[in-house]
């Protein structure tokens, strides 16, 4: 018998499409099985051990103090509202931290590539030191630095406006005078910003067409300020009070605690210092990698065209570097947000820590699901914004 020589085609199990579909199908099933196994395991454990669960506690009064909080809060507020207050604490830390860490990180990252030997060495030492020491250790370090400031009754005072002591930094702040007029003015400012952008665009187009026009950026900003100021005057004159008044911090009570104005508590100061400085060391490396990814030819071409160093950086290097920088940068934003949950160690009431207190009088399982959902919502929002931005700046493919 001789072997058949007829060609039978590729066997089914080596067909690309079959392989692709099978792997998709199998991994899909694996994911579903795994997730439902986790869910079933949790539900069984909750039932077997009679662990309390459910969400009926949400509209009960919380009746527990919260340390520093940015939204108004009273102990008679509900669990749900207290949770929102705590989530807002985390959100504000996260947004402020992301902005500051990005600024500092970009600065360090550029300094790292500086031709000046001392500056680039300092930046290198900064990066290597701060990204190689655990964040919790750094937080405690800043916490003890803040504690080393003088206590509140012996603290630094600048012109009765600024107070710095180990309980925090107090600065003058805007206080809402009337909800209607304040919100009205904020609305007007939003309109003003839109108008400013429109003016900017229009002037840019005019500059391109005619070759000359007033500086678009300057005029745009001027538009915002003019509309804002006129609106302020109109509201102030028509309602008798300005939309916002300035609230000055001052010592109150027998213990000289600073109230009014805005106080950044000692715990929050330490947290922000720790988070920003730690995250900036990672961002610096990302920025450096991004800048180095731009081919040298681009920079040499910019030089040849006679662009200044600053302009080369702003208009040639950074726009191209952004494509490399943005995706890992988003991860750092998420890290910063999640790392803020270490705040409880140093006396700031962030989401995780308020929620932990809630587990005393409410079911822990439900609370932890809520914490997970809250962090997830924040992270996904960052990812979404980051990905949209990334799409906008990525190379157009035609």
């Amino acid at each position: 018998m001789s072997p058949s020589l007829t060609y039978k085609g590729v066997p089914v199990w080596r067909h690309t499409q079959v392989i692709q579909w099978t792997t998709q199908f199998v991994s899909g099933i694996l994911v579903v099985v795994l997730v439902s196994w986790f869910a079933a395991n949790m539900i069984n454990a909750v039932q077997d051990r009679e662990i309390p669960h459910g969400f009926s506690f949400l509209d009960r009064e919380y009746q527990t103090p919260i340390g520093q909080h940015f939204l108004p809060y009273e102990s008679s507020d509900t669990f749900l509202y207290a949770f929102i207050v705590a989530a807002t604490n985390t959100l504000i830390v996260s947004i402020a931290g992301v902005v500051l860490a990005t600024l500092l990180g970009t600065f360090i990252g550029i300094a790292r590539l500086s031709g000046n030997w001392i500056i680039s060495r300092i930046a290198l030492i900064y990066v290597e030191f701060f990204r190689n020491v655990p964040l919790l250790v750094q937080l405690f370090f800043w916490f003890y630095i803040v504690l080393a400031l003088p206590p509140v009754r012996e603290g630094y005072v600048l012109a009765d406006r600024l107070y710095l002591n180990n309980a925090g930094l107090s600065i003058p702040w805007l206080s809402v005078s009337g909800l209607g007029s304040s919100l009205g003015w904020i609305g007007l400012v939003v309109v003003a910003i839109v108008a400013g952008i429109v003016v900017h665009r229009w002037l840019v187009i005019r500059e391109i067409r005619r070759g000359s026009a007033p500086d678009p950026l300057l005029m745009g900003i001027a538009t915002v300020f003019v509309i804002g100021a006129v609106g302020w005057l109109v509201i102030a004159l028509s309602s008798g009070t300005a939309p916002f008044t300035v609230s000055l911090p001052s010592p109150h009570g027998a213990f000289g605690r600073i109230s009014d104005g805005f106080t950044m508590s000692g715990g929050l100061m330490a947290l922000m210092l720790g988070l920003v400085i730690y995250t900036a060391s990672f961002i610096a490396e990302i920025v450096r990698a991004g800048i180095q990814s731009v081919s040298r030819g681009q920079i040499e071409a910019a030089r040849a065209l006679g662009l200044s160093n600053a302009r080369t950086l702003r208009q040639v290097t950074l726009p191209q570097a952004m494509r490399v920088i943005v995706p890992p940068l988003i991860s750092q934003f998420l890290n910063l947000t999640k790392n803020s949950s270490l705040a409880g160690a140093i006396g700031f009431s962030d989401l995780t820590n308020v929620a932990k207190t809630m587990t005393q009088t409410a079911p822990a399982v439900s609370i932890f699901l809520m914490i997970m959902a809250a962090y997830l919502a924040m992270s996904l929002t960052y990812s979404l914004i980051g990905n949209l931005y990334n799409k906008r700046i990525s190379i157009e493919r035609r």
Partner: protein
Amino acid sequence: MDPKMLKNKVYFVVAVLLALAVTLAACGGGGLSEEDVEERAQTLAAERMTDDTAMTEADVEEKAQMLAQTMVAQQMQDDQMETVGNRLQAVMDRGRVICASRNDVPGYGSLDDAGNNVGFDIDLCRALAAAVLGDPNAIEIRLITAAERGPTIQSGEVDMLVRTVTWTTSRDAQWGNYAQTMFYDGQGFMVRKDLGVSSAMELQEASVCVTLGTTTELNLQDFSNQNNLNLTVVTFEDTDALVAAYDSQQCDAFTNDLSQLAALRTALSNPDDHVILPDTISEEPLGPVVPHGDDQWFDIVKTVMGILIYAEAYGVTADNVPTEATGDTKVDRLFGLGGSFGQDSLGLDETVAQDVIGAVGNYGEIYDRNLGPDGIDLPRENGRNALWANARCTDCPKGGQIYAAPLR
């Protein structure tokens, strides 16, 4: 990433979370339902008979029913095992009692010079280990923060939670079962002497340091509201950080249970500069907690605590544990030398009290060693934590609140 994929990702994750939440909230019936059993038995029966083709449909049905009955019986047995004797057996198999406790407050649980974790709470755990395993050192201490106490005991991962836990009704309902109050405490305040404060009522607009996840955190709000004090709080998860913050005057006052304030005052840089205010703003009965759902284990812990208390009442210390009948029926019953107080129904040795008292001493000895003269020096005489009565002399009460269910 493609925005469409991103959107799908978002939907998927949200859906999973929602599903988890909904199932948790609804959470109807678990385990095997009757139909489940029936169905599984049928498949099993059918599988076993695949090679025996001679069997009729009716035979299959019959076999299935028999199998179903055995399965139901097995299930019932399993259920029973889960509530009776489960943890005692588990502890014996493991050879160690796992307690959740602490090492950061002198008196209750802290490290001695040799690096051993010692304290009142630790000794209660040792007493339990001596009772069920005959060896006070057969313990494993899980160090947890105040805020972790609830989840730790709810999950049942430890055999006993003994970490200055205040007995409250909602904790009793949600966390576990409180065995016995071993220390009566109350919440107070500590301030610097130079503030010139003599009562907690003078703490108007003060800033107060408090530990996260404690009843003191909850009581503070009530106290502030009732007296219009408008207190601000700084909450710390970690006792060491809190002590540092108070010591450098980040807050004006430090609130905690009075006994813990006394203990932690010794950790301040200059203890004499601080004074504990006379006000007590709450009731804080402290004692060990066991996981829900195991009555036998719950009873064992209660009994061991009772043994410690009655040994003191009978005047028996670690040094004079009787091993032969003394003629005093109460002492003989306690030490398994005549009569019984229910040892065998609890699965304990007749002479369990000999092991316990011989290993850790009686309640008074544990108190003196950790909280009394040899520890953080909290006065006991004529206080709440004295015994209620000396057993030999029931008509001359000592006036304290410490007593347990009679051992008989």
